[in-house]
């Protein structure tokens, strides 16, 4: 039920982000979702792509430091309180969110949130028990 996310270490200097998108573009890898966490010195670019194996390989070949993490994609009702009810559920179960970012679906019906939990397996269990839809990797990469 998990989704593979790749993360890339970037120095804060002009053109580094472009270097990533150039490499991915040449490798014909499509970016499905992204988030950039930054400090004054460096940034961490997190990506969900159509082909993470290929993306990781080409980025490494081009000298980037690339990591891989399992994250969880959750469908969130597009209404007030939709996200809140999910977060509340997790918080009641002492699951901590390390970070999260949104994913926009073309259909526009629901929102998708990408979560990185401190206890991923337990989080998945709780979400499933509560009938919250988790989007599997294969589906997400090809949406």
């Amino acid at each position, binding site marked *: 039920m998990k989704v593979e996310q790749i993360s890339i*270490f970037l*120095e804060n200097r002009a053109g580094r982000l472009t270097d990533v998108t150039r490499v991915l573009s040449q490798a014909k890898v499509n970016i499905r979702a992204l988030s950039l966490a930054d400090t004054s*010195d*460096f940034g*961490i670019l*997190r990506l969900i792509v159509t082909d993470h194996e290929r993306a990781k390989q080409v980025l490494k070949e081009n000298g980037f430091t*690339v*990591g891989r*993490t399992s994250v969880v994609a959750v469908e969130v009702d597009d209404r007030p309180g939709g996200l809140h009810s999910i977060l509340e559920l997790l918080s009641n179960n002492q699951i901590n969110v390390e970070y999260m970012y949104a994913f926009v679906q073309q259909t526009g019906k629901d929102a998708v949130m990408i979560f990185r939990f401190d206890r991923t397996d337990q989080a998945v269990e709780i979400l499933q028990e509560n009938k919250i839809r988790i989007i599997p990797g294969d589906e997400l990469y090809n949406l």
Partner: protein
Amino acid sequence: MIFDIENETAPREDLEPLQLSRLRNLVERVNANVPFYRRKFEEIGIRPEQVKSLNDLKYLPFTEKQDLRNNYPFGLFAVPKENVVRIHASSGTTGKATVVGYTHRDVRNWASLMARAFMAAGVNRGDVVHNAYGYGLFTGGLGVHYGAEELGATIVPISGGGTRRQVMLLRDFGPTVLCSTPSYSLFLFEAAQEAGISFSELPIRVGIFGAEPWSEEMRQDIQSKLGLIALDIYGLSEIMGPGVAMECAAAQKGLHIFEDHFLPEIIDPITGEQLPPGETGELVLTTLTKEAQPLIRYRTRDITALNYVPCRCGRTHVRMNRVKGRSDDMLIIRGVNVFPSQIEALLLETEGLTPHYQLILDRQGAMDTLEVRVEVDEKLFSDEVRHLQRLEGKIQGNIKEFLGVTAKVKLVEPRSLTRSEGKAKRIIDQRPKA
């Protein structure tokens, strides 16, 4: 294995009289043949016949790098020009190049000293030596080359540069010995990895590394990555080149200075006073046998200490500790003395850090600032900002705790710091010169 048993294991009561007779002969020669020394002796009122014991060395004048520059190019030669068979020069990275001449006998002595060095490393006939020190005016390449041939080993004179080709030949020629700067050995390791070649599968068993200061932690890192015994070699072009001193594989603890050819002292770099054995200070060397360009009390600027404790390898020659830094490379940051090698050691103690780093010194107002740039590799990388910031904090904390200096630590991308195929450029000093 000892190349020259008679000289390398001579009891000190035999060694010292030999040193004294060579010293007296040296002082006479330079007084007669080198106007620079004749003037210096006159200035301080010393006559060659007043040198009666090794203890009198301390009355002789120092020779400094600037003296070589002032007498550029051939002003310090002690023999007629036609007796000089080879000329080398230092890189001149910190100013005008310093030139050194060699007679035929100097070149032969050098080769036999390098052969001693090889044997101290456990290298012998039948070994294949991959020599990645640069050939040319720099003494590293040719010094190693002639030494290996003197020993009867097989030399691969690849010189510096062309790293991909080096990796190919490491695989194809199967060398058993690698000679390079320590930082270049790691560069080769990375390049081999990229080419899908594992160093541990190569027959290389010994690395002879020199030409830049390195730390014990760096040695451990090289040994575990490359799967070889890493040994330290010392030399400087002004004195001869590589093979002035060599660490023995038997003890791997300090470098034997070939004392029948070079007379070492340790001085306080500020006062110039001789320091007692065991104390750390600047190494000063006197060439006892050099014909073309002998030097008296040459200030090497290298910071080390001498160890007279007998070595288990059987050599009687004194050992110098690994060079801690150079007295002119010593960074004074807000009044605190810091050697780059100390920072390197702290970085390598922090798990997972690559030994690729750079120190950027600058000044803000009246305050010196130090920025330590460290490359992040995959083992270290995390997709969470706070983990990386914690790592920065840990390094910063270690530097503050152990060196008493506040540094800004900046993580940078792998391979973003320039790799040198010769000496690593670790320090960028942007402070305005006083």
